[in-house]
């Protein structure tokens, strides 16, 4: 019946009591990296707005973006961007109903970490 066993069901795996695993860590980082990208996105809008306004404004925005601190933000953001992109592709694969078992999910988690590191190194070398 519907009212049997209310309140004695398994709980959701809350972060604080759940052993970290590649599946949970990659999931948490998908959210973290995606939302952290707002910083780089707003800096990018600032850079475009400055470029549209004139040389002085551009010198200020471009100067900040190419300073060591700006470089640090952009380096972190490129890493976040590649990771989030690959994690998003993993979600699209999952949504199509493929690789949903634990073993494949863990394997894909390892792959997106590795490939995002490689893509970040590649981007830093190219740019």
């Amino acid at each position: 019946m519907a009212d049997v066993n209310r309140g004695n069901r398994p709980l959701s795996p809350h972060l604080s009591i759940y052993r970290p695993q590649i599946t949970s860590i990659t999931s948490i980082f998908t959210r973290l990296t995606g939302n952290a990208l707002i910083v780089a996105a707003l800096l990018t809008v600032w850079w475009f707005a400055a470029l549209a306004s004139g040389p002085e404004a551009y010198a200020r925005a471009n100067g900040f973006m190419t300073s060591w601190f700006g470089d640090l933000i952009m380096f972190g953001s490129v890493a976040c961007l590649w990771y989030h992109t690959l994690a998003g592709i993993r979600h699209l694969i999952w949504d199509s109903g493929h690789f949903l078992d634990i073993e494949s999910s863990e394997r894909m988690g390892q792959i997106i970490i590795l490939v995002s590191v490689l893509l970040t190194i590649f981007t830093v070398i190219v740019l």
Partner: protein
Amino acid sequence: MAFLTDRKRATGMGSAKSGTEHHWHMMVSSVALCGLIPLFVFTYGYALGMSYEDAAAYYARPFPAIVGILTLLVGFVHFKGGVQTLIEDYAHGFARKALIIGSICLSYAAAAAGVFAIVRIAL
């Protein structure tokens, strides 16, 4: 209570209302961004650090400008949906509403400012 059926208890409680629509929009924008992000990283990254004249000339070209406009538009719409999910998970009551409205306003404002800037550079 005991007379409620399982079906009756579940009706209207699931995510299959506006949630599916939200998920579909996230899927569409993420597919679009799969193509846009690599293009944007290597066009914008190329222009970043250029002199004012070079950067203005580069973004007067159609390809970098259109990639930039599309990436900012789709990117901020994708952010709007993503950050809403984040807020819904951790904030409740008035704070939830205020944060969601604020993040939607921020997303559209930033997208509009970015698109306006690129259009102004390009034209």
